Protein backbone atom coordinates (compact mmCIF):
# COMPACT_ATOMS: atom_id res chain seq x y z
CA UNK A 1 0.00 0.00 0.00
CA UNK A 2 1.15 3.55 -0.43
CA UNK A 3 3.38 4.57 2.37
CA UNK A 4 4.55 7.98 3.42
CA UNK A 5 2.92 11.00 4.89
CA UNK A 6 -0.56 10.47 3.42
CA UNK A 7 -1.16 6.96 4.72
CA UNK A 8 -2.35 8.14 8.10
CA UNK A 9 -4.98 10.37 6.49
CA UNK A 10 -6.25 8.00 3.85
CA UNK A 11 -9.99 7.32 3.67
CA UNK A 12 -11.06 3.69 3.27
CA UNK A 13 -12.35 4.64 -0.16
CA UNK A 14 -8.83 5.55 -1.22
CA UNK A 15 -7.23 2.33 -0.07
CA UNK A 16 -5.85 0.69 -3.21
CA UNK A 17 -7.44 -2.57 -4.36
CA UNK A 18 -6.42 -5.35 -1.97
CA UNK A 19 -3.87 -2.92 -0.47
CA UNK A 20 -1.62 -3.63 -3.45
CA UNK A 21 1.40 -1.47 -4.19
CA UNK A 22 0.73 -0.46 -7.76
CA UNK A 23 3.73 1.81 -8.10
CA UNK A 24 6.97 -0.19 -8.11
CA UNK A 25 9.78 1.12 -5.94
CA UNK A 26 7.60 3.55 -4.04
CA UNK A 27 9.30 2.61 -0.78
CA UNK A 28 11.73 5.46 -1.50
CA UNK A 29 8.86 7.70 -0.43
CA UNK A 30 8.92 6.14 2.99
CA UNK A 31 11.37 8.17 5.06
CA UNK A 32 12.63 5.64 7.57
CA UNK A 33 15.15 8.22 8.79
CA UNK A 34 12.38 9.45 11.11
CA UNK A 35 12.80 6.34 13.23
CA UNK A 36 16.47 6.90 14.04
CA UNK A 37 17.74 7.49 17.57
CA UNK A 38 21.38 6.57 16.76
CA UNK A 39 23.30 7.73 13.73
CA UNK A 40 26.22 5.88 12.11
CA UNK A 41 29.37 8.00 11.90
CA UNK A 42 32.17 6.86 9.58
CA UNK A 43 35.85 7.13 10.37
CA UNK A 44 37.44 7.27 6.89
CA UNK A 45 40.88 6.64 8.44
CA UNK A 46 39.80 3.11 9.37
CA UNK A 47 37.55 2.33 6.38
CA UNK A 48 38.91 -0.13 3.79
CA UNK A 49 35.95 0.38 1.40
CA UNK A 50 34.95 -3.26 1.61
CA UNK A 51 31.23 -2.46 1.22
CA UNK A 52 29.95 -4.71 4.02
CA UNK A 53 27.96 -1.79 5.45
CA UNK A 54 26.42 -1.15 2.03
CA UNK A 55 25.50 -4.81 1.54
CA UNK A 56 24.05 -5.42 4.99
CA UNK A 57 22.09 -2.20 5.46
CA UNK A 58 18.42 -3.27 5.37
CA UNK A 59 17.07 -0.01 3.98
CA UNK A 60 19.48 0.28 1.96
CA UNK A 61 20.77 3.69 3.00
CA UNK A 62 24.36 3.61 1.78
CA UNK A 63 25.61 5.15 -1.45
CA UNK A 64 29.18 5.13 -2.72
CA UNK A 65 30.91 8.44 -3.32
CA UNK A 66 33.53 9.22 -6.04
CA UNK A 67 36.36 8.21 -3.72
CA UNK A 68 34.78 4.81 -3.08
CA UNK A 69 33.63 5.48 0.48
CA UNK A 70 30.16 4.38 1.49
CA UNK A 71 28.21 7.37 2.73
CA UNK A 72 24.97 7.03 4.66
CA UNK A 73 21.82 8.75 3.44
CA UNK A 74 20.20 9.92 6.66
CA UNK A 75 16.79 10.27 5.00
CA UNK A 76 16.60 6.48 5.05
CA UNK A 77 19.00 5.36 7.78
CA UNK A 78 16.78 4.12 10.61
CA UNK A 79 19.64 3.74 13.04
CA UNK A 80 19.53 -0.04 13.44
CA UNK A 81 23.31 -0.27 13.86
CA UNK A 82 23.79 -3.28 11.60
CA UNK A 83 26.43 -1.47 9.55
CA UNK A 84 28.44 -0.65 12.65
CA UNK A 85 28.16 -4.20 13.86
CA UNK A 86 29.29 -5.80 10.58
CA UNK A 87 32.09 -3.38 9.77
CA UNK A 88 35.29 -5.47 9.98
CA UNK A 89 37.40 -2.44 10.83
CA UNK A 90 35.24 -0.82 13.49
CA UNK A 91 35.05 2.24 11.24
CA UNK A 92 31.42 3.02 12.09
CA UNK A 93 30.34 4.37 15.46
CA UNK A 94 26.69 4.75 16.46
CA UNK A 95 26.22 8.20 17.97
CA UNK A 96 23.04 9.23 19.78
CA UNK A 97 20.86 11.74 17.91
CA UNK A 98 20.31 14.91 19.91
CA UNK A 99 16.71 16.05 19.62
Amino acid at each position, binding site marked *: MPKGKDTALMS*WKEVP*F*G*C*YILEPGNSVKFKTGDWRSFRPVLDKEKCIKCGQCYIMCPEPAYEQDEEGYYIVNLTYCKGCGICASVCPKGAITMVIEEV
Partner: protein
Amino acid sequence: MGKRIAKEVSIAVAEAVKQCRVDVIAAYPITPQTHIVEHLSELVANGELDAEYITVESEHSAISACLGSVATGARTFTSTSAQGLALMHEILFITSALRLPVVMVVANRALSAPISIWNDHADIMAQRDVGWIQTFAENGQEAVDLVYHAFRVAEDRRVMFPAIVNIDGFTLSHMIEPIELPDQEQVDQYLPPFKPRYKLDPRKPISIGPVGIPEIYTEAKKAQDEAFKNAYRVIIKAWDEFEKIFGRRYRPVETYRMEDAEVALLIMGSLAETAMTAVDRMREAGKKVGLVRIRLWRPFPLRDFVRAVKGVKMLAVVDRALSPGATGGPVAVEVRSALYQVPGRPRVVSFIAGLGGRDVTVEDFEEMADKAYFYLKKKPKESYEMIGVKE
Protein backbone atom coordinates in the same frame (compact mmCIF):
# COMPACT_ATOMS: atom_id res chain seq x y z
CA MET B 1 -28.44 -28.96 -23.49
CA GLY B 2 -26.25 -31.56 -21.87
CA LYS B 3 -27.43 -35.07 -21.05
CA ARG B 4 -28.77 -36.06 -17.65
CA ILE B 5 -26.82 -39.09 -16.52
CA ALA B 6 -26.13 -40.93 -13.28
CA LYS B 7 -22.80 -39.85 -11.86
CA GLU B 8 -21.03 -39.79 -8.56
CA VAL B 9 -21.30 -36.22 -7.32
CA SER B 10 -17.53 -35.89 -6.77
CA ILE B 11 -16.86 -36.98 -10.35
CA ALA B 12 -19.48 -34.57 -11.65
CA VAL B 13 -17.90 -31.75 -9.63
CA ALA B 14 -14.50 -32.56 -11.14
CA GLU B 15 -16.03 -32.59 -14.63
CA ALA B 16 -17.60 -29.21 -13.93
CA VAL B 17 -14.25 -27.84 -12.81
CA LYS B 18 -12.79 -29.10 -16.07
CA GLN B 19 -15.56 -27.39 -18.02
CA CYS B 20 -14.61 -24.18 -16.22
CA ARG B 21 -11.24 -24.49 -17.98
CA VAL B 22 -9.13 -24.17 -14.86
CA ASP B 23 -5.45 -23.42 -15.36
CA VAL B 24 -4.14 -24.63 -12.02
CA ILE B 25 -5.23 -27.17 -9.42
CA ALA B 26 -3.28 -27.55 -6.19
CA ALA B 27 -4.67 -30.02 -3.70
CA TYR B 28 -3.83 -32.56 -1.06
CA PRO B 29 -6.03 -35.63 -0.82
CA ILE B 30 -8.24 -36.06 2.22
CA THR B 31 -11.40 -38.10 2.75
CA PRO B 32 -14.13 -37.39 1.63
CA GLN B 33 -12.84 -34.86 -0.88
CA THR B 34 -10.56 -37.46 -2.50
CA HIS B 35 -12.59 -38.43 -5.54
CA ILE B 36 -12.80 -34.84 -6.72
CA VAL B 37 -9.07 -34.23 -6.83
CA GLU B 38 -8.29 -37.78 -7.91
CA HIS B 39 -10.53 -37.41 -10.95
CA LEU B 40 -9.06 -34.00 -11.75
CA SER B 41 -5.53 -35.40 -11.60
CA GLU B 42 -6.63 -38.15 -14.00
CA LEU B 43 -8.09 -35.61 -16.38
CA VAL B 44 -4.83 -33.65 -16.34
CA ALA B 45 -2.69 -36.80 -16.69
CA ASN B 46 -4.81 -38.03 -19.62
CA GLY B 47 -4.43 -34.73 -21.37
CA GLU B 48 -8.17 -34.15 -21.23
CA LEU B 49 -7.66 -31.05 -19.14
CA ASP B 50 -4.91 -28.63 -20.05
CA ALA B 51 -3.99 -27.51 -16.55
CA GLU B 52 -1.11 -27.54 -14.12
CA TYR B 53 -1.77 -30.01 -11.29
CA ILE B 54 0.47 -29.14 -8.34
CA THR B 55 0.93 -31.96 -5.86
CA VAL B 56 1.81 -30.51 -2.49
CA GLU B 57 2.80 -31.80 0.92
CA SER B 58 -0.10 -30.32 2.87
CA GLU B 59 -3.28 -28.28 2.60
CA HIS B 60 -1.40 -25.26 3.90
CA SER B 61 0.81 -25.56 0.84
CA ALA B 62 -2.15 -26.32 -1.42
CA ILE B 63 -3.94 -23.09 -0.61
CA SER B 64 -0.68 -21.14 -0.65
CA ALA B 65 0.05 -22.42 -4.14
CA CYS B 66 -3.50 -21.51 -5.18
CA LEU B 67 -3.11 -18.01 -3.82
CA GLY B 68 0.08 -17.47 -5.80
CA SER B 69 -1.44 -19.01 -8.87
CA VAL B 70 -4.49 -16.75 -8.91
CA ALA B 71 -2.22 -13.76 -8.29
CA THR B 72 -0.62 -14.42 -11.68
CA GLY B 73 -4.03 -14.45 -13.34
CA ALA B 74 -4.55 -18.22 -13.59
CA ARG B 75 -7.97 -19.72 -12.93
CA THR B 76 -7.40 -21.90 -9.87
CA PHE B 77 -9.23 -24.64 -8.04
CA THR B 78 -8.71 -26.63 -4.86
CA SER B 79 -10.75 -28.89 -2.67
CA THR B 80 -10.45 -30.19 0.87
CA SER B 81 -12.26 -31.42 3.98
CA ALA B 82 -12.11 -31.20 7.77
CA GLN B 83 -8.54 -31.13 9.15
CA GLY B 84 -7.32 -30.12 5.71
CA LEU B 85 -9.51 -27.05 5.75
CA ALA B 86 -8.40 -26.31 9.29
CA LEU B 87 -4.79 -26.46 8.14
CA MET B 88 -5.60 -23.91 5.43
CA HIS B 89 -7.11 -21.54 7.98
CA GLU B 90 -4.30 -19.01 8.12
CA ILE B 91 -4.04 -18.61 4.37
CA LEU B 92 -7.81 -18.38 3.85
CA PHE B 93 -7.85 -14.93 5.46
CA ILE B 94 -4.97 -13.80 3.30
CA THR B 95 -6.58 -15.07 0.10
CA SER B 96 -9.71 -13.01 0.66
CA ALA B 97 -8.00 -9.87 1.93
CA LEU B 98 -5.71 -9.94 -1.11
CA ARG B 99 -8.80 -10.33 -3.31
CA LEU B 100 -7.61 -13.54 -4.95
CA PRO B 101 -10.56 -15.52 -6.35
CA VAL B 102 -9.60 -19.13 -5.68
CA VAL B 103 -12.55 -21.52 -5.94
CA MET B 104 -12.70 -24.41 -3.49
CA VAL B 105 -15.14 -27.24 -2.96
CA VAL B 106 -15.28 -28.40 0.64
CA ALA B 107 -16.64 -31.89 1.17
CA ASN B 108 -17.83 -31.17 4.70
CA ARG B 109 -16.60 -33.47 7.40
CA ALA B 110 -16.39 -33.52 11.20
CA LEU B 111 -13.23 -32.30 12.91
CA SER B 112 -11.26 -34.63 15.15
CA ALA B 113 -11.18 -35.68 17.99
CA PRO B 114 -12.44 -38.31 18.17
CA ILE B 115 -11.23 -39.01 14.66
CA SER B 116 -14.16 -38.92 12.29
CA ILE B 117 -14.15 -39.01 8.53
CA TRP B 118 -17.92 -38.57 8.40
CA ASN B 119 -20.11 -35.67 7.58
CA ASP B 120 -21.04 -32.60 9.56
CA HIS B 121 -20.37 -28.87 9.25
CA ALA B 122 -17.74 -28.37 11.96
CA ASP B 123 -15.01 -27.80 9.39
CA ILE B 124 -16.70 -24.98 7.55
CA MET B 125 -18.22 -23.34 10.63
CA ALA B 126 -14.69 -22.86 11.94
CA GLN B 127 -14.06 -20.83 8.76
CA ARG B 128 -16.99 -18.49 9.17
CA ASP B 129 -14.96 -15.30 9.29
CA VAL B 130 -12.35 -15.93 6.60
CA GLY B 131 -14.05 -13.58 4.15
CA TRP B 132 -14.78 -16.15 1.45
CA ILE B 133 -18.10 -16.36 -0.38
CA GLN B 134 -19.75 -19.53 0.93
CA THR B 135 -22.62 -21.54 -0.50
CA PHE B 136 -24.15 -24.88 0.52
CA ALA B 137 -25.46 -27.41 -1.98
CA GLU B 138 -28.44 -29.62 -1.35
CA ASN B 139 -27.94 -32.21 -4.09
CA GLY B 140 -25.55 -33.24 -6.83
CA GLN B 141 -26.99 -31.02 -9.52
CA GLU B 142 -26.75 -28.03 -7.24
CA ALA B 143 -23.18 -28.91 -6.26
CA VAL B 144 -22.18 -28.82 -9.92
CA ASP B 145 -24.16 -25.68 -10.68
CA LEU B 146 -22.66 -23.87 -7.72
CA VAL B 147 -19.17 -24.59 -9.08
CA TYR B 148 -19.87 -22.69 -12.33
CA HIS B 149 -21.48 -19.95 -10.27
CA ALA B 150 -18.55 -19.76 -7.86
CA PHE B 151 -16.02 -19.12 -10.65
CA ARG B 152 -18.26 -16.62 -12.35
CA VAL B 153 -18.86 -14.62 -9.16
CA ALA B 154 -15.42 -14.91 -7.59
CA GLU B 155 -13.61 -13.73 -10.70
CA ASP B 156 -16.04 -10.93 -11.50
CA ARG B 157 -14.03 -7.72 -11.43
CA ARG B 158 -16.58 -6.15 -9.10
CA VAL B 159 -16.09 -9.03 -6.68
CA MET B 160 -12.61 -10.61 -6.75
CA PHE B 161 -13.12 -12.72 -3.65
CA PRO B 162 -12.47 -16.44 -3.22
CA ALA B 163 -15.45 -18.78 -2.95
CA ILE B 164 -16.22 -22.04 -1.20
CA VAL B 165 -18.91 -24.44 -2.37
CA ASN B 166 -19.90 -26.76 0.47
CA ILE B 167 -21.08 -30.24 -0.27
CA ASP B 168 -21.84 -32.72 2.50
CA GLY B 169 -19.13 -35.34 2.74
CA PHE B 170 -20.28 -38.83 1.68
CA THR B 171 -24.01 -38.06 1.91
CA LEU B 172 -23.48 -35.86 -1.13
CA SER B 173 -19.90 -36.28 -2.32
CA HIS B 174 -20.14 -40.07 -2.73
CA MET B 175 -23.73 -40.36 -3.92
CA ILE B 176 -24.59 -41.38 -7.44
CA GLU B 177 -27.26 -39.04 -8.69
CA PRO B 178 -28.77 -38.08 -12.01
CA ILE B 179 -26.83 -34.98 -12.97
CA GLU B 180 -26.98 -32.87 -16.07
CA LEU B 181 -23.62 -31.53 -17.14
CA PRO B 182 -24.18 -28.68 -19.57
CA ASP B 183 -22.52 -28.41 -22.97
CA GLN B 184 -19.11 -26.80 -23.02
CA GLU B 185 -20.47 -23.93 -25.15
CA GLN B 186 -23.00 -23.10 -22.47
CA VAL B 187 -20.32 -23.05 -19.79
CA ASP B 188 -18.13 -20.86 -22.00
CA GLN B 189 -21.04 -18.51 -22.50
CA TYR B 190 -21.63 -18.33 -18.77
CA LEU B 191 -18.03 -18.12 -17.65
CA PRO B 192 -15.83 -15.66 -19.54
CA PRO B 193 -12.02 -16.02 -19.39
CA PHE B 194 -10.46 -14.79 -16.14
CA LYS B 195 -9.31 -11.19 -16.49
CA PRO B 196 -8.18 -10.03 -13.05
CA ARG B 197 -8.03 -6.37 -12.06
CA TYR B 198 -4.32 -6.74 -11.34
CA LYS B 199 -1.90 -9.59 -11.63
CA LEU B 200 1.72 -10.39 -10.92
CA ASP B 201 3.50 -9.66 -14.17
CA PRO B 202 7.22 -8.86 -14.45
CA ARG B 203 6.46 -6.43 -17.27
CA LYS B 204 4.22 -4.40 -14.97
CA PRO B 205 5.47 -4.96 -11.45
CA ILE B 206 3.21 -4.56 -8.43
CA SER B 207 3.53 -5.79 -4.86
CA ILE B 208 0.81 -7.84 -3.20
CA GLY B 209 0.61 -8.30 0.54
CA PRO B 210 2.55 -5.48 2.22
CA VAL B 211 2.26 -4.51 5.87
CA GLY B 212 -0.74 -2.48 7.06
CA ILE B 213 0.27 -0.15 9.83
CA PRO B 214 -2.34 0.80 12.48
CA GLU B 215 -3.15 3.99 10.55
CA ILE B 216 -4.37 2.01 7.54
CA TYR B 217 -5.42 -1.47 8.74
CA THR B 218 -8.93 -0.43 9.76
CA GLU B 219 -9.47 1.37 6.46
CA ALA B 220 -8.20 -1.65 4.56
CA LYS B 221 -10.63 -3.89 6.42
CA LYS B 222 -13.50 -1.47 5.85
CA ALA B 223 -12.74 -1.45 2.12
CA GLN B 224 -12.63 -5.26 2.10
CA ASP B 225 -15.91 -5.54 3.99
CA GLU B 226 -17.75 -3.08 1.75
CA ALA B 227 -16.53 -4.88 -1.35
CA PHE B 228 -17.57 -8.22 0.16
CA LYS B 229 -21.06 -7.02 1.00
CA ASN B 230 -21.41 -5.60 -2.51
CA ALA B 231 -20.62 -9.04 -3.90
CA TYR B 232 -24.20 -9.95 -2.95
CA ARG B 233 -25.62 -8.17 -5.99
CA VAL B 234 -23.25 -9.93 -8.34
CA ILE B 235 -24.08 -13.26 -6.72
CA ILE B 236 -27.79 -12.71 -7.42
CA LYS B 237 -27.20 -11.48 -10.98
CA ALA B 238 -24.98 -14.47 -11.68
CA TRP B 239 -27.83 -16.76 -10.61
CA ASP B 240 -30.25 -14.82 -12.85
CA GLU B 241 -27.85 -15.28 -15.73
CA PHE B 242 -27.48 -18.94 -14.80
CA GLU B 243 -31.21 -19.42 -15.08
CA LYS B 244 -31.24 -17.84 -18.55
CA ILE B 245 -28.55 -20.14 -19.87
CA PHE B 246 -29.11 -23.39 -17.95
CA GLY B 247 -32.77 -23.09 -16.96
CA ARG B 248 -32.28 -23.77 -13.26
CA ARG B 249 -33.11 -21.09 -10.75
CA TYR B 250 -31.18 -20.48 -7.55
CA ARG B 251 -31.81 -17.97 -4.76
CA PRO B 252 -29.83 -17.20 -1.59
CA VAL B 253 -32.60 -18.69 0.58
CA GLU B 254 -35.03 -21.42 -0.43
CA THR B 255 -38.37 -22.11 1.20
CA TYR B 256 -40.56 -25.19 1.19
CA ARG B 257 -44.22 -25.13 2.20
CA MET B 258 -43.72 -21.91 4.11
CA GLU B 259 -47.13 -20.44 3.27
CA ASP B 260 -48.96 -20.02 6.64
CA ALA B 261 -46.19 -21.96 8.47
CA GLU B 262 -46.15 -21.54 12.26
CA VAL B 263 -43.03 -23.58 12.81
CA ALA B 264 -40.16 -23.63 10.37
CA LEU B 265 -37.14 -25.89 10.27
CA LEU B 266 -33.99 -24.18 9.10
CA ILE B 267 -31.08 -26.09 7.61
CA MET B 268 -28.11 -25.82 5.27
CA GLY B 269 -26.94 -28.58 2.96
CA SER B 270 -28.19 -31.96 1.86
CA LEU B 271 -30.24 -32.81 4.95
CA ALA B 272 -32.90 -30.47 3.61
CA GLU B 273 -34.15 -33.30 1.41
CA THR B 274 -34.93 -35.43 4.47
CA ALA B 275 -36.43 -32.42 6.19
CA MET B 276 -38.79 -31.91 3.23
CA THR B 277 -40.18 -35.40 3.70
CA ALA B 278 -40.71 -34.64 7.37
CA VAL B 279 -42.48 -31.40 6.46
CA ASP B 280 -44.77 -33.26 4.04
CA ARG B 281 -45.67 -35.80 6.72
CA MET B 282 -46.38 -33.14 9.31
CA ARG B 283 -48.45 -31.15 6.85
CA GLU B 284 -50.52 -34.27 6.22
CA ALA B 285 -51.05 -34.49 9.96
CA GLY B 286 -52.35 -30.93 9.90
CA LYS B 287 -49.28 -29.27 11.44
CA LYS B 288 -48.31 -25.99 9.87
CA VAL B 289 -44.62 -26.73 9.42
CA GLY B 290 -42.35 -25.39 6.69
CA LEU B 291 -38.69 -25.49 5.76
CA VAL B 292 -36.13 -22.77 5.11
CA ARG B 293 -32.79 -23.59 3.56
CA ILE B 294 -29.92 -21.14 3.43
CA ARG B 295 -27.89 -21.61 0.27
CA LEU B 296 -25.76 -18.47 0.54
CA TRP B 297 -24.07 -18.37 3.91
CA ARG B 298 -21.53 -15.60 3.24
CA PRO B 299 -22.23 -12.80 2.59
CA PHE B 300 -25.27 -13.53 4.74
CA PRO B 301 -28.47 -12.75 2.80
CA LEU B 302 -30.14 -10.85 5.61
CA ARG B 303 -33.12 -9.46 3.69
CA ASP B 304 -33.92 -12.69 1.85
CA PHE B 305 -33.74 -14.52 5.13
CA VAL B 306 -36.01 -12.14 7.03
CA ARG B 307 -38.52 -12.30 4.19
CA ALA B 308 -38.42 -16.10 4.18
CA VAL B 309 -39.32 -16.44 7.87
CA LYS B 310 -41.93 -13.68 7.98
CA GLY B 311 -45.00 -14.71 9.97
CA VAL B 312 -43.33 -17.77 11.50
CA LYS B 313 -43.80 -18.18 15.24
CA MET B 314 -40.91 -20.51 15.98
CA LEU B 315 -37.82 -21.20 13.94
CA ALA B 316 -36.10 -24.50 14.68
CA VAL B 317 -32.52 -24.13 13.52
CA VAL B 318 -30.79 -27.42 12.85
CA ASP B 319 -27.05 -26.95 13.16
CA ARG B 320 -24.59 -29.58 11.96
CA ALA B 321 -21.83 -28.22 14.18
CA LEU B 322 -21.29 -27.60 17.85
CA SER B 323 -19.94 -24.36 19.23
CA PRO B 324 -19.05 -25.50 22.73
CA GLY B 325 -20.38 -23.25 25.42
CA ALA B 326 -21.96 -20.81 22.98
CA THR B 327 -25.57 -19.65 23.06
CA GLY B 328 -26.53 -21.94 20.20
CA GLY B 329 -25.23 -23.68 17.11
CA PRO B 330 -23.35 -21.35 14.74
CA VAL B 331 -26.28 -20.94 12.35
CA ALA B 332 -28.73 -20.43 15.21
CA VAL B 333 -26.53 -17.73 16.72
CA GLU B 334 -26.34 -16.03 13.34
CA VAL B 335 -30.07 -16.02 12.69
CA ARG B 336 -30.98 -15.03 16.23
CA SER B 337 -28.78 -12.02 15.78
CA ALA B 338 -30.19 -11.37 12.31
CA LEU B 339 -33.74 -11.39 13.66
CA TYR B 340 -33.14 -9.39 16.80
CA GLN B 341 -33.99 -6.04 15.21
CA VAL B 342 -36.97 -7.39 13.27
CA PRO B 343 -40.36 -6.41 14.73
CA GLY B 344 -42.62 -9.43 15.31
CA ARG B 345 -39.67 -11.73 14.82
CA PRO B 346 -40.04 -15.48 15.25
CA ARG B 347 -38.52 -17.12 18.29
CA VAL B 348 -35.51 -19.28 17.63
CA VAL B 349 -34.71 -22.66 19.08
CA SER B 350 -31.31 -24.20 18.41
CA PHE B 351 -30.84 -27.92 17.73
CA ILE B 352 -27.53 -29.62 17.09
CA ALA B 353 -27.92 -32.76 15.00
CA GLY B 354 -26.09 -35.04 12.62
CA LEU B 355 -22.62 -34.71 14.10
CA GLY B 356 -19.80 -36.89 12.79
CA GLY B 357 -21.96 -38.79 10.33
CA ARG B 358 -24.89 -39.52 12.63
CA ASP B 359 -28.02 -39.93 10.52
CA VAL B 360 -30.75 -37.37 10.94
CA THR B 361 -33.99 -39.13 10.09
CA VAL B 362 -37.43 -37.92 9.09
CA GLU B 363 -38.50 -38.81 12.63
CA ASP B 364 -35.72 -36.65 14.07
CA PHE B 365 -36.99 -33.68 12.11
CA GLU B 366 -40.53 -34.40 13.28
CA GLU B 367 -39.25 -34.52 16.85
CA MET B 368 -37.53 -31.16 16.42
CA ALA B 369 -40.63 -29.56 14.91
CA ASP B 370 -42.77 -30.97 17.75
CA LYS B 371 -40.31 -29.61 20.29
CA ALA B 372 -40.48 -26.25 18.56
CA TYR B 373 -44.25 -26.29 18.99
CA PHE B 374 -43.82 -27.23 22.63
CA TYR B 375 -41.32 -24.41 23.20
CA LEU B 376 -43.92 -21.94 21.97
CA LYS B 377 -45.73 -22.63 25.22
CA LYS B 378 -42.82 -23.41 27.50
CA LYS B 379 -39.43 -21.78 27.28
CA PRO B 380 -36.57 -24.24 26.68
CA LYS B 381 -34.27 -24.82 29.64
CA GLU B 382 -31.06 -24.66 27.62
CA SER B 383 -30.08 -22.27 24.87
CA TYR B 384 -29.32 -25.22 22.60
CA GLU B 385 -30.06 -28.88 22.58
CA MET B 386 -28.36 -31.89 21.02
CA ILE B 387 -30.67 -34.25 19.19
CA GLY B 388 -30.35 -38.03 19.21
CA VAL B 389 -27.90 -38.24 22.11
CA LYS B 390 -28.09 -41.58 23.91
CA GLU B 391 -28.63 -40.97 27.62
